[in-house]
């Protein structure tokens, strides 16, 4: 599900977070809201890793 969550603080500052989008789509999807709300003060990309976790053995050599 593609969602955009906005949390507006009691002083009127907004935090916007997109979820469930692929690639650059997330920035496109929220641009109209960013423009409507005001001046962007920060923009941080994050990665959501909620697909299959693959377990892979890793080998470390111990020194004598």
């Amino acid at each position: 599900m593609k969602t955009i969550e906005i949390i507006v603080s009691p002083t009127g500052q907004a935090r916007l977070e997109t979820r469930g989008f692929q690639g650059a789509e997330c920035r496109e999807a929220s641009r109209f809201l960013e423009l409507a709300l005001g001046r962007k003060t920060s923009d941080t990309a994050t990665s959501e890793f909620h697909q299959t976790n693959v377990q892979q053995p890793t080998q470390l050599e111990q020194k004598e």
Partner: protein
Amino acid sequence: MISFSGGMPSPKNGLIYLVLIVARISTVHQDKRTVFFRSHISIGGSVSHIVMIQTEVRDLEAIRQATRRLQLPEPTFDEVQLFSERKTGWAIQLRDWRYPVVANLESGRVDFDNYGGRWGKQQELDQFLQRYAVEAAVIQARKQGHSTTEQTLADGSIKLLIQVGGVS
């Protein structure tokens, strides 16, 4: 990073260090020469971004909605005398404020003179800006055909969840 303040680690610090290592490594197999552990590697996934926004007041419809929700008088376009200067824009009369605040839709700025809180509580302006931001977002989301759900959080913040492509 874990750092100890010089010298040999104390037994207590050593125990904390050990617990952190155990928590990080999910499975450990050990023999005389080799340590195996399983690491979790995630593949694929969707991308998100977090944007912080300082609210600017540019949408008259959102101003109107906010004043209705807060049961304030309708905004009027006017030249307003504040204490020492005149401002032209959309005048919003906040509760128990001596002078209205004046929103300039071109700049997004709100001019006011509350004499450091003596002529009007900052909280009233903050509440208006919060409600304005929510209404502005709802109006634009619905124009795009998205559905919205609003929730007030314990700290007084308002959470707006927009379901992209949903119908409100």
